[in-house]
């Protein structure tokens, strides 16, 4: 009884109590799942547990992982953002187009990120102030973003980017690849936002009980607007990495990415109905998807069968998390 009452740092709790606390957090089961799958893959494939493969895995997973941070915020508030894939493509092509037109890379990147943020805010206005269901709003804007990207590029990839731009997708800093570093930075910011600011607490509260939050004097609409703006921004950051890796702006990139991002969030232990989840869980979920992709590829499993296996694993994960919630 008193163990629950004690605040962190006041006394060392017995191991069992700390374990019990751990078990109640949403990341517990996803982490177990990740470890199991990780070691299973390591045992099946000799090539899995090499540093080059693991770096490869993390880099491949980083784009979905970054998008999943914004998606986590949306799902946490009881919403969803289906427009992330096209927004990523739109932001990326705009960066590419600006650079090709002679705009300095740094300015082009900033403008590209702003486009993502603005598009997210566009979603947010409809969700927060018009009170429309997020799934409908972002389904509609998903088409709009894709269309805008195609109009801007005329349907063709934009290539001929300045070589220094490759740094964000292919460069390294302190021996770590840039996509991984950017991913870590985005997760660190997400962690601070959700765990250590008033705003983060409000997002959980909105997902837990929006009406109660509003009646308590929290301006719910403003925070919803913020959520979709941030989701557009993380999609644009993913667009930066992708464009830099490919060294071309691809208007058709990111098809189906919203589903992978949602899968990462849910695999990470978040409740799809909102109010429950952790940013760390989303990272685990995204990496779990990465390990599955990578491991199944190494095993030579056909891509068609991979889809089936991933789908079944997601179903199993949600089944377990629902049983736990009841």
């Amino acid at each position, binding site marked *: 009884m008193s163990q*629950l009452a*004690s605040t962190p740092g006041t006394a060392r709790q017995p191991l069992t109590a700390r374990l019990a606390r751990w078990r109640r957090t949403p990341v517990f089961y996803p982490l177990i799942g990740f470890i199991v799958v990780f070691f299973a893959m390591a045992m099946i494939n000799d090539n899995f547990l090499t540093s080059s493969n693991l770096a490869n895995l993390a880099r491949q997973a980083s784009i979905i992982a970054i998008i999943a941070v914004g998606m986590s915020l949306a799902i946490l508030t009881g919403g969803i953002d289906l427009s992330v894939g096209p927004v990523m493509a739109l932001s990326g092509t705009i960066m590419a187009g600006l650079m090709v037109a002679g705009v300095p890379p740094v300015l082009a990147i900033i403008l590209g990120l702003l486009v993502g943020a603005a598009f997210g805010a566009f979603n947010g206005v409809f969700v927060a102030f018009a009170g429309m269901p997020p799934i409908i709003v972002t389904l509609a804007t998903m088409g709009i973003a894709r269309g805008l990207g195609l109009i801007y590029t005329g349907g063709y990839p934009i290539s001929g980017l300045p070589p220094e731009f490759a740094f964000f997708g292919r460069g390294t800093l302190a021996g770590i690849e840039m996509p991984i570093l950017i991913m870590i930075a985005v997760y660190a910011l997400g962690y601070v936002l959700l765990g250590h600011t*008033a705003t983060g607490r409000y997002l959980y509260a909105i997902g837990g009980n929006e009406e109660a939050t*509003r*009646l308590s*004097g929290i301006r719910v609409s403003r925070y919803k607007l913020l959520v979709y703006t941030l989701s557009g921004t993380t999609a644009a950051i993913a667009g930066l990495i992708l464009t830099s890796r490919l060294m071309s702006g691809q208007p058709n990139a990111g098809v189906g990415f919203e589903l992978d991002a949602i899968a990462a969030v849910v695999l990470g232990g978040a409740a799809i109905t909102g109010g429950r989840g952790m940013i760390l869980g989303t990272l685990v979920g995204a990496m779990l998807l990465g390990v599955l992709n990578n491991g199944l590829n190494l095993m030579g499993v056909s891509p068609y069968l991979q889809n089936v296996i991933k789908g079944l694993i997601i179903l199993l994960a949600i089944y377990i998390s629902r049983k736990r919630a009841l």
Partner: protein
Amino acid sequence: MTPLLSLRHISKSFPGVKALQDVSLDVHAGEVHALLGENGAGKSTLMKVLCGIYRQDEGDIVVDGQARDFHGYQDALDAGIGIIFQEFSLIPDLDAVDNIFLGREKRNRLGLRDRAGMIREARRLFDRLNVSIPLDLPIAELSIADQQFIEIAKALSLDARLLVLDEPTATLTPSEADHLFTIMRELRQQGVGMVFISHHMEEIFTICDRVTVMRDGEKVDDCDTHATTPDDLIEKMVGRRVENIFPDYRCDADHDDIVLDIQALRLEADGPDHSLKLRRGEILGFAGLVGSGRTELARGLIGATRPVHASVRIEGQPVKLRHPAAALKHGIGLLPESRKTQGLILPFSCRDNISLNNLTQFQGSLPLLRRRQESRTTADLMAAVRVKAPGPETPVGDLSGGNQQKVVIARWLGHQCKVLIFDEPTRGIDVGAKAEIYALMKELTAQGVSIIMISSELPEVLGLCDRAAVFYQGRIAAELEGSALDSQSIMHHATGGLSS
């Protein structure tokens, strides 16, 4: 003559509460029997026993002289009992015919739906009720009254000989209610027995043959309607119970120290302009029946729903309250009537629930939360309202109703609130916790906080409030104070001021 239905010596307990104590009720064929009592008197529990939703601890349900054992709603239906609940069980997108025959559709020889046959049958039912209702419109497009008639038709199609109507007129306009009474008279002619629950005296004297009065889970009296008077019934209903759970201190608020002055607050374009004054340190009761517009006024005041027009002053200063956040800034808080759906973030711990609207206090120069300060402050607040919980990290859903209510109260204590609006603060709370909530409210007023308490429980209004505004059908029918504040006059105004 054998009664159609006879409830004999029914008793029913819930953990900690004796809900029904030796209640007997007879309903004859062709009789409309009123069931009267305050909220919480046990009417609903009795009806739930009658329709098999609850199982009585003691006593018998006798239908046509035969003792019956109900294990569920279906058993009651089979025995010929039909209940029209306050919330309809109709599917809004289906039409009347499909609703009436839902789950027992007529089939033709090919095994397909026999729509023509069902329409014929529905026509026959509506003819019996003497109503004309469009048969092929989704019922969502029909009036509430028509939906209610469809419910009645559905019950009749199940061969119901006894109908229970649970506050059927609460959502009807006067002329719709008249239509309902015509139908009830028609059914009475046909020998259907009816139990009619209503708070409106006028209706009871219009339509009912007999009346049973309940109070605190017991039957107080039953008599023929023509042998009694509204005042007599009200007195039996409210009685006077010996419950000394109210703090016996009363404030002498300064009559001129007005904290909140609602000069005009119009909630709907064609609605009335409400006006009201609240003195510093007083408890003002909002009395009236459920649905009489008390909660709506409170929500309009704090901007939870946008009023059409609002002219409000706080301590003499005109203010615009467009959102609960603005109300909070001006020191007004609402503690909503449903703790679970409007008050608490259920997945949150006690601490997180309490600190929810206090978080900005725990920020430093960087917008990061100081967790330790937050824990300390919320622990103090929990202690101040005497929440009984294993600790601040306990999920709020694990607490009892009384402690949950205290958590909601604690949330507002971190602010310099001038006005707190408690909407049904003691609903679903046991007596001991009620007394603690009352004591807390008195403590708050002693600190200069003014309280508006919306309550459907008369003893609570009488025991706690310095003044009361009585609501009737969306209007403030009367403001009572001092010696004028008694149960008879509250009931009088709350039921439409039918003079005795």
